[in-house]
């Protein structure tokens, strides 16, 4: 699915009757507009109810409700409850609990307007063709203007190189995999921690070759995921400490991770 289809919950399928909003703010704007209420004085109870009705409708249709909507629903209920609290009349200028949401809505509304004008331009400008890229006089093959080369291009190039290497070196990959088994490294680290815990990661890694380090690294991640060990780093560039947790590991399961 494309990014848009995902966001719209699969708009390309037929007979879709659920309106497609581009997020909870979009839905809120719609409800405000539909009810013809003042954005600076949102009837929060009404809007909250309608917002939840929409989520219910989605649920009935078995559509996945994005976490962003649920978060907004919670926020609305929070604001609603704050509105119900008795106001302290002695204090002047009490901040309206809705203020932050209103600001966000207005900001989002502006960007939506910009997007609409972009949409019009997009249609028209897409129809204006430039000449197909030619190799320029004095250049060999396709070139990229350095000022436009970004990290995206750099890692894309790196990926291309890796993929080509993969295709031309199938055996090398096979060998690498055999030399250092993740399971062995998991077992080794775990045994070490049984003797002494915590240990400095740097100390455990010392003297290993690069490929072994990678196997250790992967094994370590698995152990963390399984809850058998924990990693701690006190400050940003400080030592990383590896410790055994209370959870006892069944070492016979380590072999499962070799073909991951």
């Amino acid at each position, binding site marked *: 699915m494309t990014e848009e289809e995902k966001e719209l919950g699969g708009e390309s399928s037929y007979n879709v009757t659920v309106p497609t909003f581009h997020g909870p703010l979009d839905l809120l704007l719609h409800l405000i*507009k539909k009810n013809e209420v003042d954005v600076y004085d949102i009837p929060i109870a009404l809007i909250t109810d309608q917002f939840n009705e929409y989520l219910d409708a989605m649920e009935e249709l078995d559509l996945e409700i994005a976490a962003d909507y649920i978060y907004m629903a919670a926020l609305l209920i929070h604001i609603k409850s704050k509105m119900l609290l008795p106001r302290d009349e002695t204090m002047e200028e009490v901040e309206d609990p809705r203020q932050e949401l209103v600001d966000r809505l207005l900001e989002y509304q*502006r960007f939506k307007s910009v997007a609409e004008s972009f949409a019009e331009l*997009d249609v028209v400008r897409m129809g204006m*063709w430039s000449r197909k890229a030619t190799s320029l006089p004095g250049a060999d093959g396709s070139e990229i203007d350095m000022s436009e080369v970004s990290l995206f291009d750099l890692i894309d190039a790196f990926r291309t190189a890796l993929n080509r290497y993969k295709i031309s070196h199938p055996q090398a990959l096979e060998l690498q995999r055999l030399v250092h088994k993740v399971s062995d490294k998991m077992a080794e680290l775990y045994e070490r921690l049984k003797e002494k815990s915590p240990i400095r990661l740097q100390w455990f890694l010392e003297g290993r070759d690069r490929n072994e380090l990678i196997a250790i690294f992967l094994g370590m991640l698995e152990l963390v995921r399984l809850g058998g060990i924990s990693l701690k780093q006190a400050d940003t560039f400080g030592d990383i400490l590896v410790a055994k947790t209370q959870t006892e590991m069944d070492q016979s399961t380590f072999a499962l991770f070799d073909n991951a």
Partner: protein
Amino acid sequence: MESNELRSAIEAILFVSNDPVKVDDLVAAFDESPETITAQLDAIKKTLDANLGGFVLEQAAGGWRLATRAEHDPILKKFFAKKGESRLSIAALETLAIVAYRQPITAPELSDIRGVNSTAVLRTLLERRMIRVSGRKEVVGSPFLYRTTREFLVHFGLNDIRDLPRLEEFGDLIGEPINEDVVAAISDHVMLSREDDEASQPEILRSAQDDVDDVKSTRDQHE
């Protein structure tokens, strides 16, 4: 250099160049004043506009470039049997609008403004070369910072990112339609042909209407 010669040499450069050609670069290549160069560019533009020929000269991304007119899009698509790139989605346009005004901006900041996770949309925009990674922000997690590209300026016919109308000029009150002047200001250098006007306008209106209808039908179902 003699005026006619200068003019045809500039035309040759414009014709060959893949990117918008900067006045400064022409000034350096010909050793002429910026005024002389700009006058020639203006003259070329006027002639092309008057001829209603196959292409026009326009200013974009701080330079000048030749491009076909929008009305020839259908025949070009037919001839080159190309579907053309798909239009940017609403989500992508929203995201692009935010990056354009708030750059450099991180994905979390962006998702916060939109109220939805925007990672996938950012990737689409990166692929379309509308935005680029310009570094990392020095906060916890060092998220990437995004900026719009030159390609973005060219695509939307902007000469400079500062040419964007001030954000405050966009409809403040909810429900109020976008200020027509602002739209006009942005689309100023866009050559809208009659046919295009008629073709694209209703589409936008229609899709807005669809949305409203969609909502109605859901609410009907629900109630």
